[in-house]
């Protein structure tokens, strides 16, 4: 443990390094991509690895010393300049972001090369920019800086998901409209806070707000910030953009964006409710908890029922994501310690589960070239390791111990009972049952149905209209790697190892969830909340 502290004393700039490395690497990747097709991947992978290691050191440092790390950008102290704050919560989310981005990236080397041929530089660069945007959103202590980084993450996200199937540009354009409304509402909220307090620093605003609890400007700032964030996190009436945007895009992008975007937005919501506005203001002064929990309940029911109706595996996952947003928002607005612990724990767990499911989708698609559920017939015989990992992820989404999904759901349900929100508990149990039906149906198909030979003429990325000229050579290459001549034909090791690592993480997160709650999450929640 002291090893990490020693490194930190040598590198006091670690809070900057964790975000500057992907930024600088994205520039190098974009430039080198003009001359060489292999180097952008290496640069990007190295940068993501450095970020990943930095986030491990940071969280060790924070957990060990219990001190909040403050880093002054440009050397200016808090209200004048921009500071980065690494506390228990942001260190945890940083670890989630960097590890998910790194694992998803290294597992998709081949997919990037085939799907974004001749544009690897730009794609890898945007991947890194998206990651650094999320890292910055998590670590920043400045309300306006948060907006800028949110826009970096959004813009690079639009580009990453805009290049997929034929329908993705339209889906992405609709996402862009809603995303812009959301971000602009957030900016407007920051403006209202600025007009009332004269400050942009989150800690500074938080120290001023208690003196003006009854101000209507502050109230409206809260409303409009939350409205913006709710659009961005796709809660029930505002969810329309998510399923199309995430299911039509390429797997590399889906594996990055689907697990992280909604979770980081929920983290921002928690940050705003707990740090910017005090819990006193959010839970006691404003009487919105009841309303938000009901919104969450409707979201859970809606997401689960819609997921039941989907034939396409990725679309089904998208509706499950919407339902999970309901879990976290509802759990947070239960307003008691157990519920908020559950919500934060579920951010981590759900990011891991969604990552595992989308990585599995990537492997299936690489293997079969199809997206429908029926394409998974007989997969257990063909790819035992992949299916083992997939089973773990599925069990975790359903909430079977000892996988991590069980433990966060346990906290959420206990919180629901403690708060007397029995409808929320019912929604959670209903959603678990629906997930059980969904995933056991897939597992059944994969286990019992005979394997079906797939028609390789319809491999999805051939429909890529911008890359038509590569049709022929590309097709042959793909065919070589996916010829079915043996009995067991696993995914390539570079895809399989990260996937198995994530699946094992699901169990480890489950087994150590008590430790995570005791050592990290307990410090996050203010003592005022019981």
């Amino acid at each position, binding site marked *: 443990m002291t090893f990490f502290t020693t490194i930190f004393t040598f590198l*006091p*700039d670690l809070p*900057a390094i964790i975000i*500057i490395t992907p*930024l*600088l690497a994205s*520039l*190098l990747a*974009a*430039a080198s991509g*003009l001359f060489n097709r292999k180097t952008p991947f290496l640069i990007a992978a190295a940068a993501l690895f450095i970020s990943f290691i930095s986030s491990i050191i940071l969280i060790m440092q924070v957990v060990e010393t219990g001190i909040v790390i403050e*880093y*002054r*950008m*440009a*050397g*200016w102290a808090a*209200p*004048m*300049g*921009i500071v980065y704050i690494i506390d228990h919560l942001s260190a945890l989310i940083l670890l989630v972001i960097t590890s998910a981005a790194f694992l998803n990236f290294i597992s998709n080397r081949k997919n990037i090369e085939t799907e*974004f041929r*001749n*544009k690897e530089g*730009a*794609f890898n*660069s*945007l991947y890194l*920019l998206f990651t650094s945007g999320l890292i*910055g959103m998590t670590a920043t202590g*400045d309300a*306006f*800086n948060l907006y*800028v*980084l949110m*826009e*970096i993450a959004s*813009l*690079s996200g*639009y*580009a990453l998901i*805009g*290049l997929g199937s034929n329908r993705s*540009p339209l889906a992405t354009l609709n996402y862009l409209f809603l995303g812009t409304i959301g971000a602009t509402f957030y900016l407007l909220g920051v403006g*209202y806070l*600025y*007009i*009332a*307090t*004269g*400050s*942009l620093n989150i800690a500074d605003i938080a120290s001023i707000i208690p003196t003006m609890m009854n*101000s*209507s*400007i502050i109230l*409206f700032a809260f409303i409009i910030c939350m409205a913006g964030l709710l659009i961005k996190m796709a809660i029930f009436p505002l969810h329309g953009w998510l399923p199309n945007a995430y299911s039509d895009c390429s797997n590399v992008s889906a594996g990055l964006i689907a697990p992280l975007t909604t979770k980081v937005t929920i983290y921002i919501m928690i940050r705003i409710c707990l740090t910017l506005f005090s819990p006193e203001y959010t839970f006691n002064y404003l009487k919105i908890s009841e309303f938000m929990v009901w919104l969450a309940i409707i979201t859970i029911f809606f997401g689960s029922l819609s997921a039941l109706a989907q034939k396409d595996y990725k679309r089904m996952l998208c509706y499950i994501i919407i339902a999970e947003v309901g879990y976290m928002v509802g759990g947070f607005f239960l307003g008691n310690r157990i519920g908020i612990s559950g919500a934060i724990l579920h951010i981590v767990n759900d990011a891991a589960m969604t990552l595992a499911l989308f990585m599995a989708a990537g492997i299936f698609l690489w293997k079969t070239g199809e997206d429908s559920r029926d394409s998974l017939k007989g997969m257990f015989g063909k790819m035992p390791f992949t299916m083992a990992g997939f089973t773990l992820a599925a069990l975790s989404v359903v909430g079977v111990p000892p996988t991590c999904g069980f433990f966060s759901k346990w906290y959420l349900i206990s919180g629901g009972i403690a708060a007397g929100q029995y409808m929320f508990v019912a929604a959670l149990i209903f959603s678990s049952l629906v997930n059980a039906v969904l995933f056991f149906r897939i597992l059944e198909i994969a286990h019992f149905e005979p394997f079906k030979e797939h028609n390789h003429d319809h491999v999805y990325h051939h429909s890529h209209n*911008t890359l*038509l*000229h590569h049709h022929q050579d590309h097709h042959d290459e793909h065919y070589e790697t996916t010829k079915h001549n043996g009995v067991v034909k696993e995914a390539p090791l570079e895809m399989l190892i990260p996937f198995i690592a994530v699946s094992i993480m699901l169990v480890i997160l489950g087994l150590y969830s008590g430790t995570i709650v005791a050592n990290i999450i307990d410090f996050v929640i203010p003592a005022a909340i019981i």
Partner: protein
Amino acid sequence: MKTLGQITVLFCGGLLLFFTSDFPDFGDANSPASLHLSPYFIENTLKDTAVPNVVTAILADYRGYDTMFETTVILTAGLACFLLLRIPKREVKSRYYLHEPTGVTLRFEGDKYPQKSDVFKRIDSNWVPYDLIINFTCRLLIHFIQIFALYVVAHGHYSPGGGFQGGVVLGASVILFAISGNLRAAIKRFGEKTAALFSAAGVFIYAGTGALCMMIGEHFLNYNFLSPLLGTDRIMARSHGIFIVEIGVAVTVMAVMIWIYYNLSSAGKQDEGL
């Protein structure tokens, strides 16, 4: 959809109008916004950074970290347009050539195009004959626009201006050239690879300066620590540091504006276009 839109707009608008009543009056010098942070900036900028233009100083120094990501947003947009739109030249289906001695326009399909010659001249499909007035005026203007752009970049410390404004004007001069002539002529002078390299290089100048400060001293973008390199005292080092990053911003903004224009005007073909 229409009624839904009207209801949403009336509801939101009513709510927003209602809450304006508690705002401090327009021009009120005693509003919280004018009393909390801004007096510090106005009264101390000269002491801290030796830059009279407070907006420039806040932009590139106090909140310089924000501005770095602002430049990155521009780069992101350039990369996004490239990734979404760019298609290789081979997919262009037909080309138009003007046979100059006779003035006949010919359309070629497939791969058989005339070799480079004095007789055939490649033209756009929506080609208009050479216009003396437009060409002459633009040729005359472009130099002055570019010199003015450099003035705007360099004079950001003392007057309204700086990297973004200067960069946009610089980019506009190249776009004006592309509009007055054709896209191919502009690409011949300022190629796509150049645009891509410049747009990455500008952010690199900015972030690299920051990283250099971090390596020499302790904080990212803390220009104080550049003073041994620049041979000035710590306050002037801030002023010079601001100028260096403004140049980075101008380079990125110029290159990305041109890059986006190339991709948008030709729908990614970069062959024909406005």
